């Protein structure tokens, strides 16, 4: 089979995973709002976004680990975002842009290791690229360029930790479960 070919089944699977994750972390919205409310008086309100960032980006790395093909991480994140557009999430079509940015960010992490390793090295590289690229995006979009340096550093650190815990550790744990259950397609490659 062509390695970079995505069939109808893969497309549906990736979109489904994205939407299911969206449904699950709809609860994350509550955490996000609570954290934002709590931190706003401290001047760290924007960090609420960084706190939950790891959650939003989970579908991408997971898709990458499941299908192990170039492009799967991007598609997983992007199709999920496209599905969530109609979920009634608060961001609507803007979801597509953030989805594309997050997708590219995650994909980059897999590209850096040449799509050959799927271990902790990959986890580290996707964590780093996702954090840096989404942070650069927020630099423009959410006006991070105007923040004071300490706040900026705090946001970056929080985002890095959130990414590592959710997109790294949690994704690795899920993949381990999937591997033990022998449900990951071409797990031996």
């Amino acid at each position, binding site marked *: 089979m062509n390695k970079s070919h*995505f*069939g*109808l*089944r893969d*497309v*549906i*699977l990736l*979109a*489904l*995973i994205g*939407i*299911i*994750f969206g*449904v*699950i972390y709809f*609860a*994350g919205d509550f*955490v996000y709002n609570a954290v*934002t409310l709590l*931190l*706003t*008086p401290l*001047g*760290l*309100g*924007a960090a*609420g*976004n960084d706190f939950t960032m790891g*959650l939003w980006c*989970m579908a991408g790395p*997971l898709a990458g680990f499941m299908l192990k093909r170039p492009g799967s991480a991007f598609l997983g994140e992007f*199709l999920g975002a*496209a*599905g969530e*557009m*109609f*979920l*009634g999430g*608060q*961001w*609507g*079509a*803007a*979801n*597509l*842009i953030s989805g594309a940015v997050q997708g590219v960010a995650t994909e980059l992490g897999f590209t850096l290791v040449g799509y050959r390793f799927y271990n902790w090295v990959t986890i580290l590289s996707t964590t780093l690229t996702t954090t840096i690229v989404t942070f650069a995006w927020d630099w*423009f979009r*959410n*006006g991070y360029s*105007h*923040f*004071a340096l300490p*706040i900026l550093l705090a946001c970056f650190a929080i985002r890095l930790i959130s990414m590592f*815990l959710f997109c790294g550790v*949690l994704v690795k744990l*899920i993949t381990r*479960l*999937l591997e033990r*259950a022998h*449900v990951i397609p071409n797990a031996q490659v």
Partner: protein
Amino acid sequence: MNPSLQLLLVLWISFEVSFTSRLTANLVFLILAIIVLLFHHLRFRQWLWLICGPFLPALALFVTIVAYSPGHDLHFGLVLVSRIYLYVMAGATVTFTTTPLKLAQSLEQTAHLPAKFAYGTLSAVNLLPKIKQEVTQIKAAALMRGVTLHLWSPTLYFKAILVAINWSDQLAQAIESHGFVEGHPRTAAHPITVHWYDWVLLTSGIIILQVLLIAFP
């Protein structure tokens, strides 16, 4: 308006506005988006959602920029707030005025997106009620055994993925058994047309945006 062109216009505006900080452009397009939405008679709850949803993130950014950042830049704070509301309202003009089915058909016919992406994603979107039910079921099943599944429990995601694999198999089979062949030329039962005024709206929207961005603060 043709859904694909409408989506393109909204994405174009959202993207360009992200990299510029002009209050006038944000406000003009925000008002335009609200007018479009007014014509579509949204329900009260939808309005409430549109207005309250982005309130907290907008407030947080505003406070951080105006009160805690070196410039104490009120103008930039307002730009950010209006930008966030613009994202939401403009996005809503797409999601609240077309159905997922129409958008998928239009993306396939107008934008020539491969049919498997259009309909693959559409079929997943249509499963949404079942997905919600399934997530509740997984949690309930765990509760019966005295296990609480949190946002950070791998088991929750693991079980959800198993379900997704099952469903994607079944959906793909169902679609193919209805005669769908990947990459094969298709005829359309509901042709989506692009009118001349679709193009006029798209180009005039983009031109107005440039003028506003260049000429006004």
